[in-house]
């Protein structure tokens, strides 16, 4: 893997029967960057992210995550990543604290480390009165923040976020992205998929998927210039139209 890259994807293909969900994807993600994986619903983003996390096998192609090969070294990948799925996937019948203790423990953190980090987290997020509540009793915005915190609690090299801001109000979304920036500052690479194209502006680089293929990749500014657009929404529409021609 090249110096500075933390994810390398070469000719990734994923087929379900005859349906090609990911069609020859090629991209790299650099260390400590925020990489936005954009596209409309059904473009193939979730399929790709699942492959990167070791949840799904590629049909063909080379994929390396954090230096580990996705075919043979999935255990290595798992130890070094965090993941937040679309449904947030916390245990509803456990408290916030218990969820953290559980996942952190599985990632191998010692009890004292969990304790101290958790105290920091409580302070930072201000969840003194929430920490012993059952997750099912939390409002959506809080569930989202907690899920993110769980995903990065063990300070992984990369964290994969699959549509993390779906269904959440704009203010909470902004707060969430603050959390993401903090994570990046501490050295974590963030790989995020979203269909909110305005969030693309928050990323260092983005790729835009249309129908299983990456149609554009680069920094938001680069893309806006290339497609002569004022914002990312515009870029996307132009790309989509191009497809139709």
């Amino acid at each position: 893997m090249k110096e500075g890259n933390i994810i390398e994807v070469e000719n990734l293909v994923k087929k379900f029967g005859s349906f090609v969900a990911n069609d020859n994807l090629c991209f790299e993600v650099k260390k400590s960057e925020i990489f936005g994986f954009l596209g409309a619903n059904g473009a193939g983003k979730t399929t790709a992210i699942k492959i990167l996390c070791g949840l799904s096998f590629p049909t063909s192609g080379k994929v390396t995550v954090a230096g580990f090969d996705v075919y043979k070294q999935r255990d290595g990948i798992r130890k070094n990543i965090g993941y937040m799925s679309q449904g947030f996937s916390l245990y509803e019948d456990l408290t916030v604290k218990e969820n953290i203790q559980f996942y952190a423990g599985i990632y191998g953190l010692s009890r004292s480390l969990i304790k101290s980090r958790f105290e920091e987290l409580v302070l930072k997020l201000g969840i003194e009165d929430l920490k012993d509540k059952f997750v099912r009793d939390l409002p959506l915005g809080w569930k989202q923040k907690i899920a993110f915190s769980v995903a990065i609690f063990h300070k992984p090299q990369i964290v994969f976020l699959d549509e993390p801001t779906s269904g959440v109000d704009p203010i909470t979304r902004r707060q969430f992205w603050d959390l993401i920036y903090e994570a990046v500052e501490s050295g974590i690479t963030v790989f995020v998929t979203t269909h909110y194209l305005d969030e693309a502006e928050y990323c260092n680089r983005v790729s835009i998927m249309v129908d299983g293929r990456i149609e554009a990749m680069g920094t938001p500014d680069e893309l806006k210039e290339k497609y002569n657009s004022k914002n990312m929404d515009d870029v996307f529409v132009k790309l989509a139209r191009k497809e139709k021609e």
Partner: protein
Amino acid sequence: MRTLLIILKKEFKQIFRDKMMIPVIFVMPFIQTIVLVYAATLELKKTEITIVDLDHSEFSRNLTAKFNASPFFDISTQYYNFGLIENDLLRENTKSIIIIPQNFEKNLRQGIPVKLQMNINAIDGQGAGLISIYVNQTVASMVREILPRNGNSNVNVMPVGFNVKSRFLYNEEMNFKHFMLPGILVILVSMIGIFLTSLNIVKEKESGTMEQINVTPIKKWQFLTGKMLPFMLIGILDLSLGLGIGMLLYNVPFEGSVVSLFIFTIVYLFAGIGLGLLISDFANTQQQAMFSIFFFFLIFVLMGGIFTSVESMPAWAQQLDRINPIYYFMRILRSILLKGSTITDLFKEFISLIIFGITVMSIAVWKYQKTN
């Protein structure tokens, strides 16, 4: 190892927080061992039959008295209108109408054979067959008695007879509850091992947390053991609870060794939980899991000898039972409790359960993949 403990901690927390689980774990043993055992009694109680005596002789009264004395029958005697037979049977006023014909004694004294007409409501085929047998038995005892006294040509020689002495071992009082309780316990333990385990795993699949788990470095064996161990413990707990209740309420004996009982229970739970795991590998929704299990469960239970004995089944069915774990555990439980059988006595069953468990568990674990 620490990971396993963390998983177990979470599992137990979730189980005890589930409002459904607590009553199931602690109340089900009570309900099953009390209600089910009392209700599920196939004990053959006295059957109501009617004797119609058209002869009114010493012999016929003798025969009627024999029927009266029989432990199988509850008789009523009536003067009868033959047109009523069908009606009486239809209305289930009586299960059988036996007619002692006229000239019963006269013919017997002359050595002329006589026929008793037996009208039996045969909707319950088994019951009807039994009635027939018992009537014949009663008649046979009469025959043995009268032979020396009548004018039969064979009367010069004392007739030969066998004095049948029956000893009912291991359950002298023929207490049906002693038969049923182990059966109910098998159902109880099986439900926990197969049903609950399977539903639990499928629920995680349905809620999406399974995916989150698959992303972490948890090893397959840690996750699966974490899922299975709690139910193994609950199964043992409930078995003990149910057994305790049974022994208290029905005086069910415990002739064998406690240790061997628990060893067998653990082996059986291993097999049952493996089966539950296997089913959960193939089911995506709780509904699917539920119905698949119910399907197999029903077949296993019916064929396993819980309510009726396996010896009554056709040969091919008995062969099929070789892959029925419930069949083995049923035999084991009854043998240990009522007969004091040891592991050596039940070695065949022991090995069979182990083989079954290992096979099922291996397939189930192999089928469970973190990556699709």
